[in-house]
Structures are given as structure tokens and as C-alpha cells.
């Protein structure tokens, strides 16, 4: 302890009374005892090797995560494109089938209409006077 006359004079000037002085002395002993105990205590030191290993592991994990994310994104994109292609092909097939069906039904309707008109126009010669009568009646 290095509390000379000057120190004590200064303390008196600061208004340190007996009670406060005792508390300050105890506080000083406390900090000194604690400091010495902790100073002498062996502590676990993080070695550079350990630190570099951790940094390397961190980087490796980061790279794996980044690569995984990129691969996942690419796979997802590819998969979506495949699905789009399949959907487009299906749509085109449906469209073709529809068009073919429409074409076929139109051809059938045309044929039936032709047959109808052919049948209605070609009256046997023996029936010609009767047909004329029918058309006159319709006109009247």
C-alpha cells in the first residue's frame, strides 16, 4: 500500500471520513484479492490453429450452402421448363384433335347437305307434274 502523507492530505481535502475510508480500504482489498486470483488463474487460450480451423469450417459450410442453393435453384428452373414443355405439347395435341374433330364434323355436314339437295332436286320425270302442282299451291 502506498498511501503517503500527500495522499492522506488529498483525501482529507476530498472529505473522506473514517467510515468512507474503511469502505474504500475494503474495496481496495477486494479488488486486489480478486485481481491477483484471476491474474494467476490459468486460462484457456484460443490457438491460431483452432481459430483457423473454425474459420475454414465456416467457409466450407458457407460454400456448401451457397452451392446447394444455386444447384437447387437451377434444378427448380429446369424442372419448371420441362413441365412447361409438357403442358405446351399437351395443349397443342388437344388443339389438333379439336381441329380434326371440327374438320370431320364439317365434312359430314357438307356431305349430308349435298345429299339433301341432290335428293330434293332430282325428281323422277314421272313425278314432274306433281311437283309443279306442289310448288303452285305453295305460291298461292
Amino acid at each position, binding site marked *: 500500500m502506498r498511501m503517503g502523507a500527500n495522499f492522506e492530505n488529498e483525501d482529507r481535502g476530498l472529505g473522506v471520513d473514517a467510515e468512507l475510508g474503511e469502505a474504500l480500504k475494503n474495496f481496495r482489498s477486494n*479488488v486486489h484479492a480478486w485481481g491477483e486470483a484471476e*491474474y494467476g488463474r490459468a486460462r484457456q487460450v484460443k490457438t491460431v490453429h483452432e481459430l483457423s480451423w473454425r474459420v475454414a469450417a465456416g467457409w466450407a459450410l458457407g460454400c456448401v450452402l451457397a452451392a446447394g442453393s444455386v444447384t437447387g435453384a437451377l434444378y427448380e428452373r429446369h424442372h419448371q421448363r420441362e413441365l412447361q414443355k409438357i403442358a405446351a405439347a399437351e395443349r397443342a395435341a388437344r388443339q389438333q384433335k379439336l381441329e380434326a374433330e371440327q374438320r370431320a364434323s364439317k365434312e359430314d355436314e357438307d356431305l349430308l347437305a349435298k345429299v339433301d339437295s341432290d335428293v330434293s332436286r332430282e325428281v323422277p320425270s314421272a313425278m314432274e307434274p306433281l311437283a309443279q302442282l306442289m310448288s303452285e299451291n305453295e305460291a298461292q
Partner: protein
Amino acid sequence: MGNPRRIVNPHGTGASTQVMAAGIALKPMTRGAVEVSTGQRTEAADQEFSAVVEAHRLQIFRFLLASTRDIDLAETLTQECFLKAHRNWSSFRGDSSAMTWLMRIAINLEKDHWRNRRMQFWRHTRTNSVDLDEASEWLPSGERSAEQQMLAREQVGHVWKAVEGLSGRQRTVFLLRYVEDQELSEIAQATGLSEGTVKAHLSRALGKVRAHLRGKP
């Protein structure tokens, strides 16, 4: 070749050019005296610095421990302090004692630490501060009775609580005075404040400690 460098032992006569620490005794050393060759000079400076480390490491650690109540942080800052001191050892002119110079570095490092921590709050929010009750446990038993021990522990607890409530400057000044037993002039040199300002900070700090001891914080 410049001013001779003197290492002042703060616990000794105050102007000694010899440092006795951990069994190491150095001869009086000035820059002229060690100027035989560059190799020898470097070796001598290293030896001189080693002696300073041996002599003051505990004090610096203790001050930082009391200031932060964080054992790991105190250890780290102590190491940084001596690393910085070693780098700048050649520029240390010996105007003040080595202890005052080291203490100034320690105070600045602590200040920088808290400033950086405030700025980078997202990086490291964990604190390892020792609990006040736990810190108060450390008391040499000496020749006291159990009751006296208990009273002393209680008093220490009150002082710790008061110290926790002090501003950074008040705490620094208070710890330098009542833990490191420094005189006002030495505190003024270490903190870069005037003696009057140091006295004012100390007075306020003591007022708070007194209030805590009387149970009126």
C-alpha cells in the same frame, strides 16, 4: 542522441533507473549506454520492456478488471495494451513514469472498446461481466471475525454498486485513486485531465459512494 530514457518504478523511490521485477534486475539504462550495435540495442530494449511488463502487468490487468468486471475482456485489453506499448516503446521518452504511460494506453483502449461496441452492437452483444455479489466475495480473511468479514463484504457490495453507477470518467478516476493508490497529479497525467477536473470527478464519485453506503443512492 535524444533524452535518456528512465524507467520510474511507481512503488519505489519514484526516480529509480533500476527495475526490479520477478528477479530481473536491469542496469541503469540510457540510449547512449546501449548503443554498441543495433542487435545489442534491440536486445537491451526488449529486456527493458520485458521488465516493465513484469512490473506492471498485474496493475494494468487489475485496473481493467475493476473497470469492466469482465475477466476475459480485461485479459484481452491488457494484452493489447502491452502490444501497443511494445510497438511504441521506442517513442516513450520517459516524461512520465512507465506505469502512467501504460495506464494511459489502457484507459484509451478501454474507451475505444466501448465506443466500438456501441457502433457495432450487432456483432457482439454478449457480456461476460461478473455479478456484483460475486465480485464482492473476494476479501482476504486476515484477522477479522466472521461478523467483521460480513460487514466488510456488505460495504464492498455498496461500493461496487456505486461504482457501477458512475460515469466512465468518474469510474476511471475513482479506481485509479482508490484501487491503484495514485496521487491526483498521476491521475491527471494518466487521464489527460487537469488536476482540478480530476478532483471534481473524484468528489462526485465519492459523493455517490457515500450515498450508497448510507443507503440513499
